Structures are given as structure tokens and as C-alpha cells.
């Protein structure tokens, strides 16, 4: 799966306003709603679900990245949005480090494979030091979009 297939470029937030975890989740989900990607389910309910999930187990996987996600009924296809914070957010990551890049995903309930395919793409990219670096350094939504499109075309960035 390529990033263009599931990342909503219009919703990308190059500098998050919120400074806390729950605020960031709300901000990103709202951005997706504004871009028209939520359709049926309510924004509030999704945010609540995601926060609940995050409380059970942090999605801060270390090295400044968090991958909050949830599967929700009514969602047709997996959609993701990226938000960055230059000051860092506390996601209770196990390495106790702040998170600078948040990749938020909302996936359909009845097609779990789609979620995994999107995760696989994310994992593959995160594995590459250069990708993480360029992502961190991106200052605008356009730059992030460019980066994602570029890695889609060149798997060996």
C-alpha cells in the first residue's frame, strides 16, 4: 500500500497546536473530519475511543514516534493523517522520550487486513533513518506530502 492510498494530505498538520496527548488526538481527528474523511461516525466518539485505547497501552513506539489508531464501524477505508510538534508531546512512551511525529490511523472494522497493510507501509518507512529525519525536518504540509509521495515512488530512498 502506498501512502497516497491512505494518507489524507489535506489534513496534515505540520505544527500541532495542542501540547498534550489527548489534545493532539482530538486535533488530528478533527482535521480528518474537516477534510471530509469521517463520513458517518462522530468525531467525538472516535476521539474518545482512541484516547481510551491509548490509556490501555501507549502507541509511543520510541524514537519520537507515536502511532495512535483505532478501528471504527462506519469507516469504509483506512485513512491516516500526520501531525508534527517541534516542542514534543508526552505520549508515555516506554523510552520516556517526547513524541515529535504522530501518525494517526482510523481503520474499518470489517476489513482488518487494510489496517495491517497500512501499518506495514508505516513500519517499512520508519525503519529507514533518512525517512524519519526528513519527516522531522519538514516544516510544511506540502513538504510532508512531497516526502510521502517520493518514498512511494522510490522504495529505496
Amino acid at each position: 500500500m502506498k501512502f497516497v492510498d491512505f494518507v489524507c494530505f489535506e489534513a496534515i498538520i505540520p505544527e500541532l497546536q495542542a501540547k498534550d496527548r489527548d489534545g493532539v488526538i482530538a486535533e488530528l481527528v478533527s482535521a480528518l473530519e474537516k477534510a471530509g474523511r469521517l463520513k458517518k461516525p462522530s468525531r467525538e466518539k472516535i476521539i474518545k475511543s482512541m484516547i481510551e485505547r491509548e490509556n490501555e497501552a501507549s502507541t509511543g513506539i520510541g524514537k519520537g514516534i507515536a502511532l495512535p489508531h483505532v478501528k471504527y464501524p462506519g469507516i469504509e477505508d483506512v485513512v491516516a493523517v500526520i501531525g508534527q510538534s517541534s516542542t514534543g508531546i508526552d505520549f508515555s512512551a516506554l523510552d520516556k522520550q517526547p513524541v515529535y511525529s504522530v501518525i494517526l490511523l482510523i481503520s474499518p472494522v470489517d476489513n482488518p487486513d487494510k489496517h495491517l497493510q497500512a501499518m506495514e507501509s508505516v513500519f517499512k518507512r520508519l525503519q529507514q533513518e533518512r525517512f524519519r529525519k526528513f519527516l522531522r525536518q519538514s516544516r510544511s504540509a506540502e513538504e510532508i506530502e512531497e516526502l510521502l509521495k517520493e518514498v512511494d515512488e522510490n522504495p529505496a530512498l
Partner: protein
Amino acid sequence: MEIKKGIAASPGISIAKSLIIDSEDYLIPQRKITPSQRLTEIQRVRNAFKDAIDELTQFEAQQDQTEGSKIKDIFAVHLRFLRDRSLRKKITDLIHSELVTAEYGVSTVLREIAAHFSNQKDSYINERAADFYDIERRLLRQLLGRKREDIKHLSEEVAIIARELSPTQTAGFNKKFVKGLATDAGGRTSHTVIVARSLGIPAVVALEDLTEIVHGGDRVIIDGNRGIVIVNPDDETIQQYKKYSHEFSEFEHKLAAIREKPAETRDGTKITILGNIEFPDEAELVLQKGGEGIGLYRTEFLYLSVTTEPTEQQHYEAYAETVGVFKHRPVIIRTVDLGADKHTQSRRFAPEPNPFLGLRSIRFCLQNLMMFKTQLRAILRASLLGQVKIMFPLITNLQEMMQAKMILRDVMEDLDEESIPYNRNIEIGIMIETPSAALTASTLAQDVDFFSIGTNDLIQYTLAVDRGNELVSTLYSAADPAVLRLIRTVIQDAHKTQIDVAVCGEVASDPEYVMLLLGMGIRTISITPPMIPEVKQIIRSVTIEDCNAVARKVLGMNSERQISSYLRNAVRKILPEAF
């Protein structure tokens, strides 16, 4: 009769006919014959030529005109070669004058011709060298009696001889017919060793040139206790070995008697002995030998002897079978640890230059989530049938661990959605087998339920040694102070966080290391089933005090040699009969 010395890899004695497993690359050493053997060798050459001609004539006839005409041509040309008297004469002349074996003669002459071709400037002509290598192989196959595909159709007891054995090759071995293994390559913990021990058959490795000496069908004695292989033993030797074999199995029976007794030190400390298995049918063996569960269930076999990826149901059935044998006792299932082998390499269009340090094991799984989730689902479903735990291999950093746990969680949510039950509280552990994991164990310990120290890979990565490479296999040692220090760090970090820590590498099966491991704080080990009685015997013969003293002493030493001989002596005092 010829006696070859290698490394003792798996205990026991076998006396059987040899079956040589093919490998594509032969290196024939120069072996001298006596003048009286000349005629025999020359006749062998004639026979090999005749058989090769028959074989090729058959192949040629089988190729039909339309598609196979190019191939038919090649066979036709090779046939003319084989019929050429001057070729045969060159070989027999060489045997006659230089007193070498038929194999050496064939190999030398044909390679000379091949070399003559590869030296030609004209590219079309120099490519013909390959034809000569092909003819060489065909003749050598006749001479060395190697048959392909025979492993699947065994009908009599054999000892398998090979240059080395891959996991794929050994996956098909049937204990009923495979009575012993001997390889040219390999170190003390190579795959051959692991398989032999699991099957409970004797094995000797690192024999260097055994495959050049043995002819298919030769009788061989494999002495896995002393690391000796005897080719074409004389009657007297056979009698001696039969007697020795009898004595050795009596010793084993004695050990079997302690099956029911607990693995407790003399001063009452209980040690949990689990078994390492690869196939579901080895689970019985673990119980038989007195093991209390499975500490390492290697799941790669599901991928290795098949051509398509196993389905979730196939995974599930294998796990269910194993868990069924153990019911309430722990079964720790390790997710696939494939890597540096056919499965992961053939899927890439550009094979990795260094697969050993590449996309293998958990890393491979994290980038192949469809495959990973299939296994995870099966493990979760099987978790209802007993005390199943899940273990991730080759975790090198926190991120990998978190990603793996994240996917496990995602898969659990999917099962919830489908109303498929599983044990929500399944224990999750990781293998500590890299220096980075060992050095950051305190962080990793925060979010897992247990550690299992995989000493095989830990030693390889720490000492930068390939355990299967017989050129450096003596460098591979668990007694290296660097390795011991890392192990100690892991144990201490686990204790601080109060999580279980076990050792599941080959070192735990080694009688010489039992006291040391116990003294360093290990209370759970997972070992190869045949060694369970012997290790239990040692545990029952020591006190924790003794073990602590051994550990203190060893951790103060800084030479691998000093440490290994100290440990060897320490255990000999306790269990002299094992040696």
C-alpha cells in the same frame, strides 16, 4: 577402514549404511592410492562412464524434438564426450602415473579442459567451460554414488553424510530410518547438531573431508560421544562398538530413572526444566524425558518444508497438537525466526548481501504483516487450550518490541470483533539474543512478562563469529567473559523488574554450564530433550551454595580458556560417569 575425528555433536552410537546427500559443489582432495589399487580405480572410471552414458542416453530420448531440441543437442554433445576414448584415456593415464583416485582423476582432467575453455577470448567458446563442469559432476555423481531425493523414500536404516545440512533438508528426516548424522562442516551448535539432538540420534560435525572418503552404501560407525566416524569398520571394531553402544544405553536408562524425580538442588531450590522443540511430535519426547513444559517452540518448520505459506489453520493445528500434550504446563511459542535462508531471500529480487544482519526474524515479520498476523491469530486461538505464552525473537530495541506488541494488540481486537475467543492475558516475552537487547534489558523489562536468553545468537553477535563456519568455530564459546557479563546484566535487570528470565540456548543443555547458570541466578532453563535427564542429575547433585561459588569464581576470571577448563573440572567432580 578409516577413522575420522570431528566434533561430538549429539551423543550416542550408530552403526549403519551411509547415504550421502548431494551438494552441488565438490572439492576433491588429492588422495593417493597404492599401485595395487590402480586397476580398481581404472575400472571405477570405466563404470562411471558407462553409467553416465546410459543415464544421458535415457535423458536424450526423453526430450521431445520440438521444445527440447536445444537440450537434446547438449545431451548429444555430452554423450559424444563421454564416448570419446581420448578423454577416458587422459583420466586413466593420470591415475596410472600419479596414483590418484578415480574422483581426483576425473575432476582434475575435466577441470583442466574447462579451464582451457574459460581462458579463450571468444565469449561463446569460454562459456562452454560450464559444459565440462557439468560432465564432471555427472561422472562424480556416478563415482560417489550420491542419489537425490532419497531422503523422502527411505526404507532402511541409514546414516546421513553431507557436506552440511540445511534446515530444509533436515525437516524431512524420519527417526525410524535416519540413525545418525555426520557432516564435513558445522560447529558445536550448527543446525545439524540441533536436529540430531532433537531426534535423539548421534551426530559428529566438522569432519572436513568425510564426504570425499565415504562412498554411498559404505558402512559407517558414528560415535557421537567421542566425535569419531569410522568408515568401513572391520569386524573387530564393529564388535567393540556394539559392546560400547550397549553400555552407553544402560547409562541412559539409569538417567531415565530420574524422570519422575523433581529438578531440585540438594538444598531444596527448585529449577524448572523445559524443553526446546521444533516439531509437534517432539513434545512427547520432552514429557518422556521429564521436562515440565516447552520453553522454546521453534515455529520455522511450518515454512521450511513446504512450497506455499502455511494457513492459519495449519499453524493452529500444529500448536494445538503440542499444547494438547502439555495441557496445564507452559508452552512458549516463538514467532517465526526466519532469516538468512531460502525463505526470506528468495522473496527478494535483490538478495541481501549480509542476510545474517539483515531483514530477518521479527524485522521480517514486522514488514510482512499478513504473514505475521496469520501466525499471531493461530497462537492466540491456541492460547485457550493450555498455558500458552508468546515470545518474539531477535528484538534489538524498544521500537521493535513496541511494534510487535502493537500488532499483537491489533490482532486481538480483530479476534474480538469476530467473536473468536482467546486468552486476553496471554503472557508476552522476548528473546534476548543481541548485545543491544542485553545492554538495554532494564528498559525492555518494563513492558514484557518474561525474558528468554538465546545464547546461540547472543554469542554469535557478541563475538562476531558464525557458529556454522568450521574455520572459526573454536572462537564461538559461551565461556567468553564478554558473553557472561552480558548474561549477568540481563539476569540482574530481570530480577530488578521481577520478571522471569530463562536461558534457552544450547549452553543450557551443556552439563558444564549448569552450575554457572544457576549460580548467576537462573531458575528456569529450556533445553534439548535428550539432555534433560543428565542436566537434572547435575541439578540434583549440587547445592545453590556451590553454584553461587562457581559463578563468583568464574565472573572474576578474564580468560575464556580458564573459564572453560574450570567449568569442565567442576562438573566432572560431580558427574564423572557422563565423561
